[in-house]
């Protein structure tokens, strides 16, 4: 019953728990009150605090007398409710004494505003095992878009939840309902380990993990069954990885755990120039105005240089590198008398020559454009710095057919999920890949409009779009965040600390998810959408539980989601038999 000793308001009230009943945080409840005229008003809400105390005693030490059986006292067990919905929207307070009941079935759907959602997919299980619906309209860009996930690495399992959401979107029948099954895709950047290279394989531990959980809860059915999702790995996945360093005709993906099924990707040197990828090499271009000018200038020059041909390499006629280049057998007539630039290193050397060496150190005046020597040097120095990381990725020594074959294409037909593995690349190269791929995607979408939805999963947003400073990749991400939803590019971003990510990216996310947070972090303004009690709890969340906030429901909801059905490392792959259970278990526990 609603308490009369605490204020009951239309947004929050306390209620007394009857003896024998048990109420915990996150339980959903409903109260019905009547206006003096007799019209009913229902309140739906979420328990956000529970407490017990001795009633009728004055001193703290009285508890000893109560326990010794001398002092009569009663235990008052009360819970606070944050109202998520008032129906009809008649904001009168509930009356003390109104009965509070657990929300189930239809009441639950109303509590979570499920009736307002045209299309929804399961976002996890509530504490009592009921399904949380997430409004797809706020995910795919129709009413809102983007998902943002915050939490400490390792314990917050941000990537797992992002993948679970994708799995849920793809496989809950939602897309079939909407007739979009074949056009909705995902682009996942793998930034940590080779965790995501086994998304298409069944997880060997799934049965045991979920079985244990089911047994502990005493449920009739497992979590996947409750969610209405198949316990299956991802389907139609392509894996892209950068090639191994070192020259040669054979391009091999630079991955260790997975032997087959990973496609390497490269950009041809001509593409690099023609498609103006140069700015993405510099992640801190905003640091100096002059440097930005030089980059823009070079970008333009290279684009002009690359125009008019389609061979993967570039040819220039005004430069002779120091080393003798043997005539190779596939020399074309056009190339006669010209120098072919086949590697990223050569390109950098060429730029160095044009900017600093030509004309006895004056540089080519049309390239230099009266820029300060120091700035030019800084430009070249930076290029040299990333040369090692980018050399395997940007190549001119591949054949046209190879360039075509290994060009990353995340919109390839028949592919629903593309995993781009960038964890082995250096920081600059990672930014480069992410920036270039997103830019391509964005430009493609701008040209062809929103025919389909692409979900982009990117962890460590604070690295790509930090709050301070400017970079081309941050611009792309901002574009995605601000305009992407109208074009059908949806960012599922994650970061450890939302306070360090560009504010506009986080604030554009309609759905926000929080896993375990550092308590100091939880007090920052980025987490104001969490009520105070939830901020305190974010510090004790266990892996596998998340606080989900969506626009339809004014308060966040705690959900748990099942163990991944897909393998997250090689030793979890179901086919991989031969290791005994103990070893696998130890591995899992990190012993």
């Amino acid at each position, binding site marked *: 019953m609603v308490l009369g000793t605490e204020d009951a308001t239309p947004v929050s009230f306390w209620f007394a728990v009857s003896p024998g009943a048990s109420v915990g945080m996150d339980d959903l409840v409903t109260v019905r009150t009547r206006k003096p005229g007799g019209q009913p008003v229902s309140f739906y809400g979420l328990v956000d605090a529970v407490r017990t105390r001795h009633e*009728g005693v*004055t*001193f703290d030490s*009285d508890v000893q007398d*109560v326990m010794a*059986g*001398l002092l*009569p006292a009663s235990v008052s067990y009360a819970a606070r409710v944050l109202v998520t919905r008032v129906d009809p929207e008649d904001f009168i307070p509930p009356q003390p*004494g109104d009965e509070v009941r657990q929300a189930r079935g239809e009441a639950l759907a109303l509590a979570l505003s499920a009736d307002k959602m045209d299309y929804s997919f399961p976002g996890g299980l509530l504490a009592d095992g009921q399904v949380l619906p997430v409004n797809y309209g706020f995910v795919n860009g129709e009413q809102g878009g983007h998902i943002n996930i915050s939490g400490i690495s390792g314990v917050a399992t941000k990537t797992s939840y992002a993948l679970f959401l994708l799995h849920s979107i793809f496989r809950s029948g939602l897309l079939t309902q909407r007739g979009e099954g074949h056009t909705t895709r995902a682009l996942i950047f793998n930034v940590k380990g080779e965790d995501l290279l086994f998304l298409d394989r069944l997880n060997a531990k799934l049965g045991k993990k979920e079985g244990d959980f089911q047994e502990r809860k005493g449920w009739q059915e497992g979590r996947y069954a409750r969610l209405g999702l198949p316990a299956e790995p991802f389907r139609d996945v392509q894996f892209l990885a950068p090639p191994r360093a070192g020259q040669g005709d054979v391009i091999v993906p630079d991955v260790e755990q997975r032997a087959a099924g990973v496609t390497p990707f490269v950009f041809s040197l001509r593409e690099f120039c023609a498609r103006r990828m140069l700015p993405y090499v510099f992640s801190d271009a905003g640091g100096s105005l002059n440097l930005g000018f030089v980059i823009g200038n070079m970008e333009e020059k290279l684009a002009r240089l690359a125009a008019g041909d389609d061979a993967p390499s570039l040819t220039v006629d005004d430069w002779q590198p120091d080393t003798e280049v043997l005539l190779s057998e596939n020399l074309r007539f056009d190339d006669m008398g010209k120098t072919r630039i086949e590697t990223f290193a050569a390109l950098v050397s060429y730029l160095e020559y044009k900017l600093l060496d030509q004309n006895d150190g004056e540089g080519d005046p049309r390239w230099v454009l009266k820029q300060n020597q120091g700035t030019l040097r800084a430009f070249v120095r930076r290029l040299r710095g990333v040369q090692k990381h980018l050399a395997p990725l940007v190549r001119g020594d591949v054949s046209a057919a190879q360039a075509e074959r290994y060009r990353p294409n995340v919109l390839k037909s028949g592919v629903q999920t593309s995993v781009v593995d960038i964890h082995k690349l250096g920081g600059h190269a990672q930014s480069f890949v992410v920036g270039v791929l997103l830019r391509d995607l964005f430009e493609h979408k701008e040209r062809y409009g929103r025919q389909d939805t692409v979900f982009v999963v990117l962890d460590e947003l604070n690295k790509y779009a930090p709050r301070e400073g400017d970079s081309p990749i941050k611009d792309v991400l901002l574009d995605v965040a601000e305009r992407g939803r109208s074009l059908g590019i949806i960012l599922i971003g994650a970061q450890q600390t939302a306070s360090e990510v560009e504010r506009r990216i986080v604030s554009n996310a309609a759905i926000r998810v929080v896993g375990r947070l550092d308590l100091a972090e939880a007090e920052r303004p980025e987490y104001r959408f969490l009520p105070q009690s939830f901020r305190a709890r974010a510090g004790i969340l266990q892996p596998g539980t998340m606080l989900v906030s969506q626009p339809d429901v004014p308060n966040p909801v705690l959900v748990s989601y099942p163990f991944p059905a897909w393998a997250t490392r090689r030793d979890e792959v179901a086919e991989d038999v031969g290791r005994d259970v103990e070893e696998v278990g130890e591995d899992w526990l990190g012993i």
Partner: protein
Amino acid sequence: MAPMRIRLDPWPVDMEGGQLGLQRFEGDLIDIETPRWGAVAPRSIPARLHTVYVVDGKRRMESRVFLEDDEGEAGMGGFGAYVVGAVNLCPHGSRPAELENVRARRLLAHAPGLRVDPCLLSPRDPHTGQLQYTPIVAEGTDPLAPLHKLQQAMLSAEQELSHGLASAVPFDEGDDREALTALTLQDGTLRRRSNLGGAVVGYVKTMQTQYLPPDRVGLLSELKPGERTPIMHLTSKTGKTTRFIWYVRLCEAAFYQHPMSGVMRLEMYAPDDSDFLPPIVREVANVSGELLCRLASRAHKDPRAPQNLIPTAALESAMSRAMGSADLVTRRLRAHIAGQYGPGAVA
């Protein structure tokens, strides 16, 4: 000549009488347990005594009224409420203490010869319950008569509750079937003259009458906590009231306090026949030291510590709560009268 010494009366100053001024008792006092006048050590509480009830009552006059009935008769009256209740506890501490029968009753006491209907006070807010006042005839037309009637009703309810709960006390030597399993502690002196037959102990917190002759008073100051005096049989001056009485000390008196602070007088009903001490009375006296020391409250929690027992304090607050807020009740009464007879309703 002894030096001058000042000691504090342990009772708060707003309590009437206090302990320092004691009246002399003029009835009869007979040693019935033993002729030896000395401290009796406490005994441990027997396992078969499984329940102790602490009973108390409380009353409140809520409004004095002037009544006129439909036949033109007029007289004084009053709206009042009383509560009696008990705390049910295990002296061995094996289960939580519980409140029992704490429920307020409301009376409209009025002068005799009036026709008064029961009064039902409905609140404006339907969530807050109704108050029902039952008419009861007071003895006499004195303005204080309704209050006395209320007090009487409370006392008799208290007695009934006390005796209904406790083990029965056998009255002759041949009857020893009844063992002490349930004991009632009742706040204050046992007021009735006749014995209802239950194992009920009245405990008197403030001593206003000195029953002991001067040569025996010294023992009271010497008692150690838990120790008691031997049981005596007491007959009042009028000869109408007979009791068994003994004294128990609950705690050491601090050096600055009256030497008798922490001493409590206990009494039980006694037959007129002064030769027979029922064994159950001796048993009650034996356990009283340990039991009361266990129930005694602490000074920082209760200004009447240690005599105001822990369960009693809890019971008192539960009883006040059961009667409801006096301000609200008075306001409800006023609103009722205004609604019934006035030009318009007021809050």
